């Protein structure tokens, strides 16, 4: 009978602390370490390199959620909606996604549906100007649903390939604002069947465990088909996505790594796991 080798408890404790430092949260950290301890026991080797590799693989496995079959726009424009709490990076990410689509030869329209925050429309207009992309906007204070309605009409009339809706930041605890998001979503769906085909929850990598509450509430009010983890060019690791992906089964699609239109990467679970373990 082969003696069961167990991983050095000190090494496991160090890993647990690294995971907590990466914002995965105490429950997820101890769960991950327990899974690693068991796997290492099975493998019969307590080599530190192996322990780290097992952890990386476990994290990567948990993050590899199959993306739901993308709602295909039935011949009309594809509609993408950006949602999330204040300051997470929605407007900048909308510009990045618009740039990508534009570079790939698709015709894009931007909808300035943040009619509340000071200079929100101006901010999106600067980006649109830089990218040579039209913006549908109303006056500040207008009903965001009206902006979305007009943007959908324009997208259809101009046979645009892609319509990206930028919405106002809102804390997930504000019921009336979450209701407004449900309404915006309904209006888009009424104008363009199947819209919004993609709802991206934009999450700041600096967020702690409140990210889970954000994901739950935004999923309830607007549906979420994918996550964008922004500001990953900083030192925060965005570990809260482990709890989010586990509970809501929604994939992380993109990672924001800077403030220019090109600073957007496709999510790589392996790279993410590597960064958080090291």
């Amino acid at each position: 009978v082969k003696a069961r080798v167990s991983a050095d408890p000190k090494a496991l404790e160090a890993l647990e602390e690294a995971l907590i430092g990466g914002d995965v949260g105490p429950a997820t950290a101890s769960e991950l370490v327990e899974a690693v301890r068991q796997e290492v026991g099975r493998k019969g080797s307590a080599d530190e390199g192996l322990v780290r590799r097992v952890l990386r693989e476990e994290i990567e496995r948990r993050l590899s959620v199959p993306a739901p079959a993308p709602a295909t726009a039935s011949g009309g424009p594809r509609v993408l909606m950006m949602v999330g709490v204040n300051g997470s990076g929605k407007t900048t990410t909308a510009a990045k996604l618009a740039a990508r689509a534009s570079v790939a030869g698709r015709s894009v329209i931007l909808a300035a549906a943040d009619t509340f925050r000071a200079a929100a429309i101006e901010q999106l207009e600067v980006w649109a100007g830089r990218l040579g992309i039209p913006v549908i906007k109303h006056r500040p204070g207008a009903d965001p649903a009206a902006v979305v309605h007009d943007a959908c009409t324009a997208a259809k009339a101009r046979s645009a390939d892609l319509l990206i809706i930028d919405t106002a930041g809102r804390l997930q605890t504000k019921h009336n604002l979450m209701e407004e998001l449900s309404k915006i979503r309904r209006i888009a769906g009424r104008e363009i069947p199947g819209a919004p085909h993609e709802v991206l929850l934009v999450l700041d990598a600096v967020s702690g465990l409140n990210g889970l509450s954000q994901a739950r509430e935004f999923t309830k009010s607007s549906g979420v088909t994918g996550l964008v983890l922004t500001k990953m060019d900083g030192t925060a690791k965005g570990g809260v996505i482990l709890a989010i992906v586990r509970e809501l089964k929604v994939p992380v699609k993109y990672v924001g790594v800077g403030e220019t239109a090109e600073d957007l990467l496709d999510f790589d679970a392996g790279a993410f796991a590597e960064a958080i373990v090291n």
Partner: protein
Amino acid sequence: SLSDRLQRVFKELRGEGHLTEFHVDEALKEIRVALLEADVHLQVVKDFIAAVRERAVGQEVLTSFSPAQQVVKIVQDELTRVLGGKAEPLALKKRPAVILLVGLQGSGKTTSAAKLALHLKTVLKKQVLLVPADVHRPAATEQLLTLAKENGLMAFNPKGETDAVARVKAAVKEAKLFGYDVTIVDTAGRLHVDLALMDEVARIAEAASPDEVLFVADAMTGQDVVTSASAFQARLPLTGVILTKTDGDARGGAALSLSTVVGRPVKFVGIGEKVKEFEPFHPDRAASRILG
């Protein structure tokens, strides 16, 4: 809740006249989890737990409390002490007193600049001049000018000046000339690992000679708050913190991490998106929130 979890820990406590090491350690396990779930930085949690342990072990069990309640009270008192300990009013003696707002992208600096200006104007009756010194973000100047206009606040947009340091120098000159009491400078959000931008903010501080340098942090910030704030503190004389977006349900452990590691008090909190949604920091309220 934490109280319920601690009640369970102390259900076993029978006939002991004082809080035993065993029971305190069991209680501290629960408290550690509660603090980590509140996003308090891991090292700050460890140091905090050690301090609480020292105060709790051997303490007489008071007849007015259950042992669980007693431990919670020790934790709350200690939290409130650390959060409120270094509280000081803003240093506004010099004319114009200069307040510099710094922090990571999207934390709430521009909004907080307008909020602080409105607060100083209405509560302390100061003449305040707002200075938009973010030359990076699209429409950053427009954002601050719009907030100023909508709230009857004065702002100075130095004509044709596109360098942040030059803008600040021109604004301080303008503030002196027109007898303003306070100048509030809004800067661009920046990463502590962006050396060029950290150099820029250090140069802005050198030019402005600020009386207050406030680190603006989002209440939902996680473990990284210690890394970023420490890096800012290495380049700037931070004097305090503004914690924003506390109107959400984030537990706000960042407040404890900042008070402990930066050693400067949270001076104000943002409690909403509107410019009037701003108030002085209350350590006891922040402590209850962190404990959940």
